[in-house]
């Protein structure tokens, strides 16, 4: 804060108030002075921790001297990366993460788009109520949502199984091997659809009504209107929500971690982030955990930038 004030003061003194004639030179440095607070925060809160993680990821703590021994930290350079990359569990986790993303993102965005279009249709009733009730699950923290759903999933306390039994159908173990992906995905979809719907709905509202009027005069039905006009206009918003959803699902952690004590199917390295947590906070090895985190961060960065470029080229082709 002190920096903010002092840089503004410098501005005032050197810039307008002090010597108006020499404003050209001072204003040239002004943008940089304005940047200082943000840059300092960025360095302190982002660059330094990332740098520290990089350093940690190349170190290890080992015991020397036999027996209880003495623990010392030293540089092992790329050994931790080698350990992570040669662990088959890490790749199984990655594969599970890809499957999970492929389930969650399309379903969640499909539902969000459907709800947004329905809410935007002139015939829709109780819009305000529907919008809020679809959005509400987003306000429930992931851990709480997972606990709630977990209790609903457990075969012996699940109301769904009571219902199935009542209908004379066999009980289902949702946390069993076949359905575990569905169980975890369901929580994410339940929680995320509302937020994406609001984003899509908001950008739909920004479309000028004249476009719709013109289409209707030309004999366009509501379904055609949605398909031919609304969805193409929504493409930029869809791209953005897709990228954000993908980044969120790539970091999936709290849902499976919370369900783990309830489900034998979910191991401590079920998802890559769970493995990072396990290495760092259960096995007490922050070094290997950092290496895993760096690999994941790089992967996410490459994937998001790659898909952004790819999608942008198609979505905004007309703009150029």
């Amino acid at each position, binding site marked *: 804060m002190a920096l903010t004030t002092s840089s503004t003061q410098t501005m005032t003194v050197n810039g307008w108030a002090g010597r108006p004639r020499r404003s050209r030179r001072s204003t040239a440095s002004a943008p940089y002075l304005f940047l200082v607070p943000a840059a300092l925060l960025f360095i302190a809160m982002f660059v330094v921790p990332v740098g520290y993680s990089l350093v940690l990821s190349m170190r290890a703590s080992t015991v020397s001297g036999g027996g209880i021994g003495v623990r010392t930290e030293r540089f092992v350079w790329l050994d931790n990366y080698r350990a992570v990359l040669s662990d088959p569990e890490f790749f199984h986790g990655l594969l599970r993460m890809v499957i999970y993303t492929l389930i969650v993102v399309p379903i969640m965005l499909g539902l969000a788009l459907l709800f947004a279009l329905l809410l935007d249709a002139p015939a829709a009733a109780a819009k305000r109520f529907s919008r809020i009730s679809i959005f509400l699950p987003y306000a429930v923290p992931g851990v709480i949502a997972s606990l709630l759903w977990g209790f609903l999933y457990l075969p012996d306390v699940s109301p769904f199984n009571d219902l199935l039994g009542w209908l004379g159908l066999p009980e289902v173990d949702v946390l069993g091997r076949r359905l575990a992906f569905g169980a975890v995905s369901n929580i994410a979809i339940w929680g995320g659809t509302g937020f994406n719907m609001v984003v899509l709905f908001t950008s739909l509202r920004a479309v000028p009504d004249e476009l719709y009027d013109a289409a209707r005069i030309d004999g366009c039905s509501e379904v055609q209107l949605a398909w031919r006009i609304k969805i193409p206009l929504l493409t930029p918003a869809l791209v953005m929500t897709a990228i954000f959803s993908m980044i969120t699902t790539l970091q999936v952690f709290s849902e499976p971690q919370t369900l783990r004590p309830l489900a034998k199917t979910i191991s401590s390295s079920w998802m890559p982030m769970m493995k990072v947590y396990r290495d760092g906070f259960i*096995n007490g090895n922050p070094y290997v955990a950092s290496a895993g985190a760096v690999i994941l961060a790089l992967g996410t960065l490459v994937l998001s930038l790659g898909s952004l470029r790819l999608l942008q080229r198609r979505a905004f082709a007309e703009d150029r």
Partner: protein
Amino acid sequence: MRPTVVAKSAAVVAAVALLAACSGGGSSSGSATAAATGPVTLTFWSWVPGIDKVVATWNQAHPDIKVDVTKPAQGDELITKILTANKAGNPPDLMQAEYQALPTLLTNGAVADVTDYVSSQESAFSESSWNLVTFGDKRYGVPQDIGPMMLYYREDLFKQYGLKIPTTWDEFAADARTLRQKDPKRYLTTFSSGDPGWFSGLAAQAGGQWWSYDGSTWKVGIDDEATKKVADYWGGLVGEGAIDNKPMYTPEWNKKMNDGTLLAWPSAVWGPGVLAGIAADTKGKWAMTALPQWSSGEQKTGFWGGSSTAISAKSKHAAQAAQFAVWLNTDPGALQGLVVNGGIYPAAPAGQSVPALQSAPAIMPNQPDFYTRAKEISGTAVGFTWGPNVNVAYNTYKDAFAKAIQSKSSFSGALSTIQSATVDDMKSAGFKLSG
């Protein structure tokens, strides 16, 4: 002790013995030897419920050694916090350390050797309790509470189905099969892939030695013959469907314990506190007996849970801290306070017959001699040595046994997985291993 267990049992014990607390807590004066270096303030991290009340009686009697107790976290989280604080150079002087976490703290240089400070207390604890804090002839903590294992069973349902109270594991298995035949909806018990501490206690009873340390090298024996025997026994029961295979401490398990789907629970002395929390409808229906034995005529049990009071290697007032740690865990008034407020079962034999432990637990009024039996059983507990990476072994246990149950593969195979994960981790950390 298991934090969840402490919290749950605390409420119950506190309710029962509130009166006793008032008479017992304040009476202790302690034999304060004058501190050499004027007044000091010691920081203490613990999670025993109501420990602040016990500490307050100490502070009143010892103005020169003020103890400042806080509860920053529980169980494994507290260990992570202590290790971080130790690295940063500002650890607490005193800490609650579960027995299985002591070696981790020790190999990270976080706890002090207290052998000299406790040498006069030799007779205050049993050999098996001292064992839990001893590594290579040196002591690294003062035992606080222990969890000797025992068997809880539904007296009413055992009678209803004509089941014999098992004295051996063979009889236990026979009961499990009989029950399945008589009522396919019920199970005698469950095998929990979520509770490595439970399994290690059962392995210890059979003579399993998961770690041993001779002062210079470690030996890991998680897949030793005794533990394999235990694993294959439970694996057989799970495989033939004679017992349930769902983990403990889930809402589902709570329900099954309450509605009589599960008839028995090999647990520890703190079991009644848990039962009161999850199975309130079963009051007066549970009974406790010794754990079934591997050969008839034997009398052995293992530990599930328990913790010690350890002193930081970086504490500047280790002597005063040790004085407090000894008082906390041996003084009858302090122990009475810990039992009443924290629901612990003291490691010190003197504490096992404090006033608060004279009557039956609230959930089991049908067994007035509960704590007399518990004291007898705790005398049969065998010692166990923990290793420096119990966390790795425990976590692998959860993954490996869950997988073995899911894929119906052998339980001793899961043990080999734990053994190799533990050995690999110790090797890569640089420990010297033999065998």
